[in-house]
């Protein structure tokens, strides 16, 4: 008991210290840019958690991060590394958007599941291609997912500039590459009125996190998937078709990213538009790692990163510095937090620093 409390204390201590160290380095950057670090950090850290807007926006961002993070965790359980989140998000989003536009009259309770399923399927196919190439052709999945990202990106742009572009953009000659607005029957409700964007997609994400946890650890499917990841030779010995489960893991992983894209469309933007994936496909990898590649761990991790993202935006607005600087400070924080994981996971360090407090067992 006592040792558990010490463990928690230690973790908080380590995280805070690494956070502060990152901020100290960041303040050098800020000073060079001629900005008062205190003002900047106040905007970055305090504002997001002290306003409804900040919290709402952090949650809005945590949803796609959570979905991608869950996907990465699934792939990782079969020892596959999915770098293809961006492409899977984009194709999932565009497919979901097309589906939503195609079924304007259908009641919400039916429309939304259909749309999510479409986003999942298309993202899943995109991930599954990489899985198939790995299983059948031994193509490294890091390579194939990155390449598939390029293809997906071009496909995405083509679709929202061409076939799926909002007819009124053409009519008015503005030509902004985006689709028409989704029909009301296909979009998630906002949760709190007053103009905040937080929407009911968050419940979907939370439910999926829990379902995936169950899938991985309580079902025969998850048993097989994890067996394949842990030791393919033994999995084969036990009668499991290793290839099949490699592919399925990537399908699920891509599917989760596809849902992330879907939720962005029908929850946030209500259109498919350029820049929608917002690098969630890559940030999601960090979220997954920070959540210990566990679908439940991903929940708090994604919220933390959501806060970080909105904090960075708020800082930028408050002190008016180039976004590249904001991104680099954000990078510093992520780096510090993720690398402190080493200290968190290894009981040796805990013992070294706080051993004098511990009870001998």
């Amino acid at each position: 008991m006592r040792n558990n409390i010490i463990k928690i204390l230690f973790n908080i201590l380590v995280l805070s210290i690494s956070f502060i160290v990152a901020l100290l380095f960041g303040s050098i950057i800020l000073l060079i840019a001629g900005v008062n670090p205190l003002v900047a950090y106040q905007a970055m850290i305090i504002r997001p958690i002290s306003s409804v807007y900040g919290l709402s926006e952090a949650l809005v961002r945590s949803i796609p991060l959570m979905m991608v993070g869950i996907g990465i965790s699934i792939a990782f359980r079969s020892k596959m590394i999915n770098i293809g989140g961006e492409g899977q998000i984009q194709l999932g989003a565009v497919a979901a958007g097309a589906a939503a536009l195609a079924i304007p009259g259908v009641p919400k309770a039916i429309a939304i599941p259909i749309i999510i399923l479409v986003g999942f399927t298309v993202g899943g196919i995109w991930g599954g291609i990489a899985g198939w190439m790995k299983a059948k052709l031994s193509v490294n999945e890091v390579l194939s997912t990155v390449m598939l990202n390029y293809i997906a990106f071009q496909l995405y742009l083509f679709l929202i500039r061409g076939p799926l572009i909002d007819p009124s953009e053409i009519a008015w000659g503005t030509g902004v590459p985006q689709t028409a607005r989704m029909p009301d029957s296909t979009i998630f409700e906002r949760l709190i009125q007053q103009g905040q964007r937080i929407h009911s997609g968050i419940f979907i994400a939370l439910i999926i996190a829990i379902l995936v946890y169950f899938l991985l650890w309580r079902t025969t499917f998850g048993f097989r998937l994890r067996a394949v990841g842990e030791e393919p030779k033994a999995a084969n010995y036990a009668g499991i078709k290793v290839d099949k489960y490699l592919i399925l893991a990537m399908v699920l992983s891509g599917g989760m990213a596809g849902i992330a894209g879907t939720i962005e469309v029908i929850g946030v933007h209500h259109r498919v538009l350029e820049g929608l994936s917002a690098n969630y496909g890559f940030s999601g990898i960090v979220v997954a790692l920070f959540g210990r590649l566990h679908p439940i761990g991903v929940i708090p991790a994604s919220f933390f990163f959501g806060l970080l993202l909105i904090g960075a935006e708020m800082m930028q607005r408050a002190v008016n510095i180039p976004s590249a600087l904001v991104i680099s400070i954000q990078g510093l924080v992520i780096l510090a937090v993720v690398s402190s994981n080493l200290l968190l996971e290894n009981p040796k360090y805990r013992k070294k620093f706080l051993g004098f407090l511990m009870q001998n067992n």
Partner: protein
Amino acid sequence: MDKIKSLEMVNITKKFPGVIANKDVHLKVESGEVLALLGENGAGKTTLMNILYGLYHPNSGRILINDQEVKIDSPKKALDLGIGMVHQHFMLVPSLTVTENVALGIKFKSKFSMDLDNVAQKIKLLSKKHDLNIDSSLLISDLSVGERQKVEIIKALYFNANILVLDEPTAALTPQETDDLIKWLRSVIKEGMGVIFISHKLNEVMNVSDRVEVLRNGKNVFSTPISKTNINQLARKMAGHDVELPTVERKNKFGNTIIELENVWAKNERGLDALRGVNLTIRKGEILGIAGVSGNGQKELAESITGLQKIYKGDIRFKGESIANKSVQSIIDKGMGYIPEDRLHMGTIPGFKVKENLILKDYLRSPFSKIFLLDRTYIKDYCKSTVDEYDVRCPNINTPTHALSGGNIQKLILSRELKREPDALVASYPIRGVDIAAVQYIHEKLLEARDNDMGILLITEELDELINLSDRIAVIYEDQILDVIDTAEADKSKLGLLMAGIKEGSR
């Protein structure tokens, strides 16, 4: 550092979650002698040696070299001090060459380049001097178990080890390789090497060692010069009670044929023929032994029957139906059990919990799972009772399997395969690395299964085991079955000749 004249471990205690692996253990070895370290599976031998080699850090205790205390906090430190170790489960990187594996432990002068040619040269010299015969440019993954072991030895020699720890070095060696190893050991001891030798094969222990130290439940229980003891006493000290090998009642009534191989041809991973026209029948209630030096097609034989190996000609029938090239799952479902040779990476999933490995072949069926949900309560109860029944020693059923001692992993596999009560069982080297009491136990279980009408294919290199258990013995040589003889007519010398490919009357 000076040459090690004496090495002493004093009051070593090492705790793992749920177990005390070593408790106040002491041990002393001097240069020029072989100390045998004995004990049941899980007694704490490997743990103690891993502490000596700097892989584990003890909770308390000291290590003295030439009466001076040393701190060994990493394998590198151990190597620097002159301590080398050949692990029970080898620690080589399969995708690297022999040279590269040795070079991993070297601190090169330049931080940016490794003088691999130099390393290769030195390996060549060493392997010539010690008659080890290793081509240093080969990948580890292409080497046999015996060759891998030689690489581990070369690694130790490369760093001028003069205390060498051998953790069950002979468990997976052919009899010939074992003889070579022992001969080699004798020669290096003459030159002043000190050796700690761990083995469950007590005749070997009597043969090579000068002193023995016996551990039980992580504590020293017995220590003696070898001249003052005998096999029976050692077995008793290890187990804490008398150990008797089961007496086998010969059977003369067998059931119908259960497995039948007809002109089976198969190729190995390198695309060479590994089975050439094999014909065999196994009957219900019979143990058919396969005698042969390992590497003569045993692995492919076992794997074609269990569906892991494709055959390109011939047929295999199980209970009258063809199972040639059928899926592994369908063969399991039909009632085939398999104890594979590679217990750590094929027989179990090292990162899985003990309970997950225990249901590795059952998770799909009711009551282990319903539709697709695993029944956790049932699984827990089932695994608890299996672990108790088969005496698999583990802190609890949630322990990751790689934390079990080697022998206990073997028992885990055995318990899983037997508890499913298959109709036929392929058992490859089932007693590899298990202690005498467990050998007795495993043999009893196999005989019991036989008496309950299971058909068993027993692959092993231990002639005593073969003669003791088998009803008939088939000799495999160069991918073919040379002969099948009744055990009543078999003796060691006849089998020895056959295993070398010499058939009577054909000379």
